[in-house]
């Protein structure tokens, strides 16, 4: 469910006000163009989950939980474990959210987050194999959006990443007969890098980092880039029916790397404080 409904009249009034502010290099809540809202990361909030994390980004609040079981690998990747990210905007998250199956915006949100985690190689899925072609670890990360106030992409991504970083999954073993048993031992996931997603909105000709819901209601287009801690860009997605100039795309990619380093630090601090 898309979280913020556009109300055309308010949108137009707000847009004018925002444009005046943006021309002076500031925003409705006083932030500069490239400032993010405060982010807090609190891992291990759900004891029954193998890993979990609650992330606040301004007033946006999301919670991610990791559950792990044993599954069958895809036929074309018999030597890789499974990693599945899904998201749901709960009806309690916004006056405009409704219960029901995920709509296209929520599917996009989950798939872009999934791509960031997957393509960065955050989890070494090659190490999640029990019996090649038959039994692999299946890692499910489900994200619930509790309060939607813009930039769900970055909040959801930070929650997924911090939940995976702190997860302790049950160790499974292959018995002599070839069946799989769950042991009492808990192991961390094979982590290789920490990806960070940075989303920017385009309003008029201005690019602003971490849009809140009011800015999202008037934005022309949205762009997300995910970077890893080795300086690579590993996922990207432009959204909405507006456009970016070539220069704006390059600017957004480099801004995402810069801001991604800051978000990575916040995630690391949150994870360390929990250990």
């Amino acid at each position: 469910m898309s979280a913020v409904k556009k109300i055309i009249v308010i949108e137009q009034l707000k847009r004018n006000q925002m444009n005046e502010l943006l021309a002076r290099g500031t925003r409705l809540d006083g932030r500069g163009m490239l400032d993010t809202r405060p982010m807090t990361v609190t891992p291990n909030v759900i004891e029954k989950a193998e890993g979990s994390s609650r992330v606040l980004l301004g007033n946006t609040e999301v919670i991610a939980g990791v559950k792990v079981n044993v599954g069958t690998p895809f036929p074309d990747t018999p030597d890789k474990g499974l990693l599945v990210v899904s998201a749901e905007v709960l009806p309690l998250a916004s006056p405009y959210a409704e219960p029901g199956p995920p709509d296209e915006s929520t599917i996009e949100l989950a798939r872009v987050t999934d791509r960031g985690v997957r393509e960065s190689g955050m989890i070494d899925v090659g190490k999640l194999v029990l019996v090649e072609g038959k039994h692999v670890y299946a890692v499910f990360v489900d994200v619930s959006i509790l309060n939607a106030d813009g930039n769900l992409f970055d909040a959801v991504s930070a929650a997924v990443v911090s939940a995976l970083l702190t997860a302790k999954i049950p160790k499974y073993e292959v018995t002599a007969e070839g069946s799989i048993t769950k042991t009492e031992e808990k192991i961390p996931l094979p982590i290789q890098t920490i990806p960070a997603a940075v989303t920017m909105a385009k309003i008029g000709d201005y690019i602003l980092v971490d849009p809140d819901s009011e800015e999202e209601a008037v934005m022309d287009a949205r762009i997300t880039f995910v970077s890893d801690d080795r300086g690579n860009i590993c996922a990207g997605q432009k959204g909405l029916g507006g456009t970016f100039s070539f220069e704006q795309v390059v600017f957004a990619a480099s801004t995402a790397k810069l801001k991604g380093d800051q978000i990575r630090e916040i995630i690391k601090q949150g994870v360390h404080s929990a250990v």
Partner: protein
Amino acid sequence: MGKAGGDSRALINEQGLRIDGRKLDELRPIKIEVGILKNADGSAYIEFGKNKIMAAVYGPKEVHPKHSALPDKSVLRCRYHMSPFSTEERKNPAPSRREIEISKVMREALEPALMLQDYPRTAIDVFVEVLQSDGGSRCAGISAAAVALADAGVNMRDLVAACAAGKVAEQVVLDVDDTEDKEGQADLPIAIMPNVNQVTLLQLDGQLTDEEFGKAFNWAIEGARKVYQLQRQALIGRYFAPEGNENS
């Protein structure tokens, strides 16, 4: 999409040629036809390598359900769908999450080019059917859909042309095909409005350094410009062909 190449077959050989013999910056063969479906208001067919894709436009027309109509502009609706026989393994005909996402980004890629405010309280439906897929089907589908919209006579600011670049065996390449997509390292599909120099679609999966991103992005833009020339030629062939030499 996997980062791990790990395949005995080299994706790029010593001569710097790719598995299908293309140079690093070479497009696959492309063929575009206009007005191929009788019932549709506009239609186009594209072959892009082994991709075979049909696009049809219905509208501007009455909106059903009525409450989804907009008072100030037309509602653009897109459906990207893969036929069950279009892939190596049979594809379940029900729309997958991937197809739902592509339908969304495809609509958002076409929307900036359309003068939707010229058709208030109507709907424009764009159907893209992938009959055979070969990597880069979203780009080929968008390019065909833009031609179909022009064929339908919908008012447009520009065409939309799409192309992907990527990274294969540590090298930036233009127009990633199916094998390169599966075994390569990165895929960067983009769509542009070639006359106003605006990006209307951008997705990326796979790792690129800053430098590689810049190079792949520029190559994809140049690739899209070549696709645009073919789109133009196809439309000119359809509407400005000399008498008795109609290209249908």
